[in-house]
């Protein structure tokens, strides 16, 4: 058994897995940022963030469809405006969820907002599955196919087996660039702007922040909006990358993104990015080495190990509230 395992290691396409893992991980990281920001500011898990990601997917296609019905198929403009539409709609959902399900429970026992968040996540997921339907949806090829061309070829393919070249596609480049830009912008916003100072102030001492004149409710709402926007962009990228949209995508990716946030150190923004990339890469290597059926088991094991060995996460600043 060990022998066959080592044998299977030899044929692993390291390079390609590293690329796909990083691409997937950067999308997880975008979702994980939403979890980690809300956790940082409210010390609660916004379970519905995964569903916001899923709503972002559908909102993009709705936006594109609406625009192409209005003025025709202008691929670039429609796609960009579709993303904007998704960001706005997902932000509205994020803000609304904070308003309806969390604001009144801000000072309650930890069980209450958590339960409410799970309820909200179920409501959003079922809402989409009911109104949009269960049949699979495809991201319009008209918009995703133009991104399929290969920018760089890293390994020549093998014509005998029908396996083509290994390389980086335009879409992968776009995903990585977008993710990097958004993360840099977020980092800048948190550390170098007034809103960032206000957000950090609120996360450290909510009452005091209010006493020095920071409108706490607005800042918290803003955090939700930022987190939702990142999740919506991740949704667009993910649906373009995988060419499909499903109502259940939020739970699957959301759980992984959340694991990423914990592994990186929840409440810590660089940690979420690191965790996302790690999870993406580990997941892809597990698929190649052990088989796809084991990846969630492996991820769960990693989560448990992190909690045992380093509960505050890789980059966590402080002990994760051991009570």
């Amino acid at each position, binding site marked *: 058994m060990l022998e066959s395992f080592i044998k299977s290691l030899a044929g692993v396409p390291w390079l390609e897995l590293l690329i796909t893992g990083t691409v997937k991980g950067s999308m997880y990281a975008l979702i994980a940022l939403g979890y980690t920001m809300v956790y940082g500011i409210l010390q*609660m*898990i916004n379970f519905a963030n995964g569903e916001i990601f899923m709503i972002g997917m559908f*909102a993009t*296609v*709705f936006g*594109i469809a*609406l625009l*192409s*019905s209005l003025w025709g*198929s202008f691929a670039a403009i429609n796609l960009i405006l579709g993303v904007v539409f998704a960001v706005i*709609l997902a932000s*509205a*959902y994020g803000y*609304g969820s904070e*308003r*309806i*399900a969390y604001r009144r*429970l801000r000072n*309650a*026992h*930890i*069980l*209450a*907002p*958590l*339960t*409410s968040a*799970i*309820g909200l996540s*179920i*409501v959003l997921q*079922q809402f*989409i*599955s*009911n*109104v*949009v339907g269960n049949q699979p949806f*495809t991201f*319009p*090829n*008209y918009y995703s196919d133009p991104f399929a061309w290969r920018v760089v070829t890293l390994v020549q393919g093998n014509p005998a087996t029908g396996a083509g070249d290994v390389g980086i596609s335009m879409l992968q480049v776009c995903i990585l660039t977008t993710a990097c830009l958004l993360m840099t912008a977020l980092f800048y916003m948190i550390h170098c702007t007034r809103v960032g100072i206000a957000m950090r102030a609120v996360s450290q001492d909510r009452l005091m922040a209010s006493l020095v004149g920071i409108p706490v409710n607005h800042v918290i709402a803003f955090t939700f909006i930022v987190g939702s926007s990142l999740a919506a962009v991740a949704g667009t990228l993910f649906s373009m990358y995988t060419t499909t949209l499903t109502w259940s995508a939020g*739970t699957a990716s959301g*759980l992984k993104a*959340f694991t990423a946030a*914990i592994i990186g150190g929840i409440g810590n923004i660089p940690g979420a990015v690191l965790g996302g990339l790690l999870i993406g890469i580990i997941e892809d290597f597990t698929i190649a080495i052990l088989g796809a*059926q*084991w990846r*969630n*088991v492996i991820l*769960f*094991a990693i*989560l*448990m190990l992190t*909690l*045992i060995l380093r*509960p505050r996460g890789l980059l966590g600043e402080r002990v*994760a*509230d*051991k*009570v």
Partner: protein
Amino acid sequence: MSTPEATPAPAPASGPAPGRATAAPWWNAFVPFLVGLVAVLVITFPFIWLRFELQPSGEVYARWDVKGGVDFWQNMGPVCLIGLGIGLLAHAYNAWGLQRYTDQVWLPVKPWTQSLYAPLVAYAVIVAYGFSGHMGFALAPSPTTLNLGIQVGIYMILAMGLNIVIGYTGLLVLGYAGFIAIGAYTFAILQKPDFIPGLPWWAGIPIVFIVGGAVGWLIGLPCIRLRGDYLAIVTLGFAEGVRELAINLEVTGQTSGILLRNASKIGLAPDKPTILAWVLLLVIICAAAIYRIYHSPLGRAWIAIREDEVAAGAMGIPVVRMKLLSFALSSAFAGVGGLLIAAYTGFVSPDVANFNNSVTVLAMVILGGLGSLPGVLLGAGILYLLPELLRGYVDFEYRLMIFGALMIIMMIYRPQGLLGTSRHAIELKGG
């Protein structure tokens, strides 16, 4: 702010304070509600009234879907009204101080010997009714009724088990289905020819109780010291892991699950009234056991931890060990429930560990009353039976949505659940 500083404050001798008399017309209270309604209508609009259509070219167009929109509101309208009604009732219940009166009715604790009389009488009546079909009684229960009774009984055991960890100790477990699956699979695997092919279901109960408890203990060990929400996530991941393990391992029959052989021999009993009698007996045994534990020093330790962990620790309660114990006990009861499911349906598949199952049991506990034994029984009954009653009236697709909405509404208006006590309410709201 623009008034000169020196002006002395005009203190009106009588009448309402200025600025207040004009600013609060009667409809003021409805403004946020209406704004919220409009906002919800706007942001749900594209998903409800629009459909997108993919063209063969790969382009996508939108079209109005009037029928879909009307259908949605026909389904959701009543649901929204029910939700609103529950919210308003709960609000009124809290606002008018009705809580005090119900506490007087519900709170008194009597010696446990006395408290067994009524359940036993009820049990005798139900079981007699269940068997009345054998005696040719005209109004005898149909197999459907008996089936529902059995399933409700199983879910009552599950909900009581989950209540130990959520209601008593105040820890959230999201992957309860994982523990149910452990129980179900343990029993099913023991049935296999290589193990104990003739194992009767009642002999399996202590085994799954111990196995379930041990697994709970092991899972709880690393994460029970952490904040409550970590536990929630870990258990969620655990359930997913169990599902995948069940899919992948040879011993669990992989995706096709395990079909228990000779169901009538090892299954619960040959006929439904007998099964009902056994399951309800188990419900009573479990309820009595949990009731006794709750009113023992152990139960008081749990409550102390729920109310204030630091203080409980300072008073010498071994917090971590107590939490682990409650977690392990809860998963042990989940194991018993899993065994019953396996023995009754005669089939175990990875579906048992589905997240939906966890949510259903969680919703039962939250609706019925966190920490309230009768409340949890009621919650299990209502949430299992209502969908069956509504079958044919409300689409299944809206059921989970109602569960989710119920969880939000309950948390906002009545976090202690239908029959929970106000002590819990203070803890949840003000803690």
